[in-house]
């Protein structure tokens, strides 16, 4: 049986979408230029002010000076080493915290009993701003690698936990019922219905967690370390190297932005079925 309605509906939709896209594209470019005008202007003013000597290089060095420093540190290999140390801390903390948050979240999402037992304690710990725990964590672990990884893991686990629980609880019970009708075994039910259904929410949790991971790392690294981006900044403070300090701030920002775009890429990849995350046209 061939359906005549598919033949006429699809071209109509396509032409409408194409029209909307070209219309939007033209306005989009002008707005893109406009939105960048103020940051670029500020950067130029900053550069000029620093060169003219209106701002002391100890307060704020010129952007060109920061670039020079970046180049010098890259050549010497110091930047790569410190960046690597920081990234490794973030990654280990994220892996540990993410796994704990995901497992607890899955448990609580599935089982009402687990929810009753675990959820209150987790919510109580969450009420404490996790950065306030830093002095205590230093007493426990000292200022070595474990203190930093612990802080990152702590910050990461909560957003992942909350969004995993939420995602699993939000799944349409009718789809789970369908799984039973189709004779799915428990593992298959989880793999085919529950995890994909919870995935949009879990990925939102991952995005939040990436942001907290960096926050935790900046704070933990700044307190005491002998390597890493935070150490670079603290070391530079001793010698009043404001250019290096500004550089580390920029690096933190750049890493935050790229982490977020990785998360978005994941969303677009894994949620291509979802009408809000369609890969087309982006």
């Amino acid at each position, binding site marked *: *049986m*061939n359906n005549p*309605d598919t033949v006429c509906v699809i071209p109509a939709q396509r032409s409408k979408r194409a029209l909307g896209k070209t219309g939007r594209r033209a306005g989009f470019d002008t707005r893109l230029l406009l939105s960048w005008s103020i940051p670029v202007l500020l950067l130029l003013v900053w550069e000029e002010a620093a060169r003219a000597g209106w701002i002391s290089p100890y307060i704020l060095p010129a952007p060109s000076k920061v670039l020079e420093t970046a180049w010098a540190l890259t050549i010497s290999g110091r930047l790569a080493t410190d960046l690597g140390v920081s990234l490794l801390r973030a990654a280990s903390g994220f892996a540990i915290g993410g796994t704990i948050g995901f497992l607890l979240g899955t448990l609580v999402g599935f089982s009402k009993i687990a929810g009753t037992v675990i959820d209150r304690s987790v919510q109580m710990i969450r009420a404490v701003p996790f950065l306030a725990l830093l002095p205590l964590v230093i007493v426990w672990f000292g200022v070595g690698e474990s203190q930093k990884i612990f802080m990152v893991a702590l910050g990461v686990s909560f957003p992942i936990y909350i969004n995993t629980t939420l995602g699993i609880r939000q799944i349409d019970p*009718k789809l789970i*019922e369908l799984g039973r*009708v189709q004779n799915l075994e428990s593992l298959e039910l989880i793999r085919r219905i529950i995890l*994909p259904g919870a995935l949009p929410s879990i990925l939102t949790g991952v995005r939040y967690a990436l942001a907290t991971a960096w926050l935790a790392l900046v704070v933990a690294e700044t307190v005491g370390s002998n390597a890493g981006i935070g150490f670079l900044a603290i070391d530079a403070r001793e010698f009043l190297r404001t250019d290096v300090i500004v550089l580390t701030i920029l690096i933190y920002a750049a890493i935050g932005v790229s982490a977020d775009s990785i998360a978005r890429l994941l969303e677009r990849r894994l949620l291509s079925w979802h009408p809000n995350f369609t890969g087309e046209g982006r």
Partner: protein
Amino acid sequence: MPPTPDETAAVTATGLVRAYGDSLVINRLSLRIPCGEFVALLGESGCGKTTLLRALAGLDTIQAGRIDAPRRPAVVFQEHRLLPWLSVWQNVALGLKGEAPRAKAEAALTEVGLGSRLDDWPRTLSGGQAQRVALARALVQEPRLLLLDEPFAALDALTRIKMHHLVRRLVAKHRPGVLLVTHDVGEAISLADRILVMREGAIASEYTVSDQPDARELHSVLLEELGVAAGEPVH
């Protein structure tokens, strides 16, 4: 003494009881559907027909009685219940055991006229197409018993008629026993071999459609059974 297995029955249910609190939703109901027979279940809202279907599907527990179904029944619900994150063919193959699931899904989808939409997302389908995929997903399991829970209720009139033709053709070919829950008398007459009218949790009356020479007469008899008097003025 174990009951003798009934080889020709798609389902045999005896003495079913289901109560919510004090009210009996299913009251000592017995039912037998042979393979290849199309049975429609009519009844007013709240008479227990959906509860009966859910009990036969194993989705609702019963408090007394027994259900003998040789294989797990397949169900088509009022909503298509397609998983939005699986492509059309993966939806059809959901829970399918054995080799070459894609080939089986493709064959089933071709039967419902959607052989060209295998790799599409469900959200790109119209309501009627989605319901046809749901039908393919039920039939690919090769069920002995097919349970249809008002599967055409949400479709527009023309699509519904097309669906009737399709279902009649597929049931004639695969010959499962079918239980269709509906409140559409016309639909019941046009599709079923036998019509059961359910009232207060039990089967109140039964009609064999082929015995009735005049479909219009059966229509008004059934409407009367459902509490709609035939002679009632329309305006």
